[in-house]
């Protein structure tokens, strides 16, 4: 599993690549990614592939909800750290 810093950088880079060029500068780690429509549901499978690669373990899609992807801070806390905030089995 990558460090939290490496995972966060990879995630920022991926989100910026999916956002419109003029919008990518407005996205920070607390920006609501789906609520503000920088990402849509069609981006989720690719995001999950990225997160699984970063953490080196699968994520069960059946246990996910929109809140798990609210912003970069939430995603890192849920999926890329060994902290208690991480989804059990997720």
């Amino acid at each position: 599993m990558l460090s939290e810093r490496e995972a966060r950088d990879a995630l920022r880079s991926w989100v910026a690549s999916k956002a419109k060029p003029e919008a990518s500068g407005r996205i920070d780690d607390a920006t609501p990614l789906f609520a503000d429509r920088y990402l849509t549901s069609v981006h989720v499978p690719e995001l999950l592939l990225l997160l699984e690669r970063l953490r080196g373990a699968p994520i069960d899609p059946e246990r996910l909800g929109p809140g798990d992807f609210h912003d970069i801070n939430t995603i890192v806390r849920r999926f890329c750290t060994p902290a208690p905030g991480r989804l059990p089995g997720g």
Partner: protein
Amino acid sequence: MSGTDAASRLREAVASLDDTVDRLASLSRRNYHNPYEAAWPQAVDPEGSWYTTPELTSLYGTSVWDGLAEPARRRLSFFEAVNFFSLNIHGEKMLMAGLASRLYRPDLAGIADYLHHFLDEENKHSVYFGGFCRRYARIYRSRQVEFPGSPFTAEQDDFLFFAKTMIFEEIVDYFNARQAKDARLHPLARFINEYHHAEETRHLVFGRRLTARLWEVCAPAWGTEARESIREYLHAFVVMAWREYYNPDVYADSGFDDPWSLAERAWQAAPQQAHRRAAFTRCLGVLRAAGVFDKDPADAF
């Protein structure tokens, strides 16, 4: 934009398909198929046959493929087939839900007869896909997660449903059509591809005509910004649809270490990018001719 205007446009678009719908419904009745009479082997040997055309596997053209002995290539081709059938199951589940929700809606009444055939045939396809996966392997998970709410209007959601269906089926049919003719494949894998291709041919005629007509009749009223949002969404959908063919779960079952990195390497490999572009050429032509796409979904290739 009122709901009445939108319903009127949908009726107009659908009415122009009357002849096509009658012809396709007649063909469906003439070729009616019972999926419950298939003879399933007790077991299949993943390393004893090809289950996916080798040139269509997701590692073909990569250095990893070059380093595999033939039994390992066949084993990969087996799990690739399981993935292909699984992604069809997940896609058809969403398709059937969307078709069922549109059955007998007043503004789509003109295509109701054909929606019955479409729904019936998709269900039968899933009988075969599920039959294979559950007997000989498992159904791979889908990474698609639906969130509640849509940023689009109801009319735009109708268009997107039929456009996404066509895109999904065009990609699938590229594989089906080639694998139906590939004498190297295990007879069961070949049959499932052949049967699916025969029915998808009708669905694609319907999907291409309806998608083009809906765009022609409905999209002018949506405004430039909405049309651009729809294009961006569909570009992302194309990427998502193709990404499912590079499933780390397949590589793990085939015995590869670090399957996620392998999936990314395979996705980025130049021969695979060329393969996706070639496979998507026909669909791209349909979408460009209809005006839905004004440029290629570059991230997919």
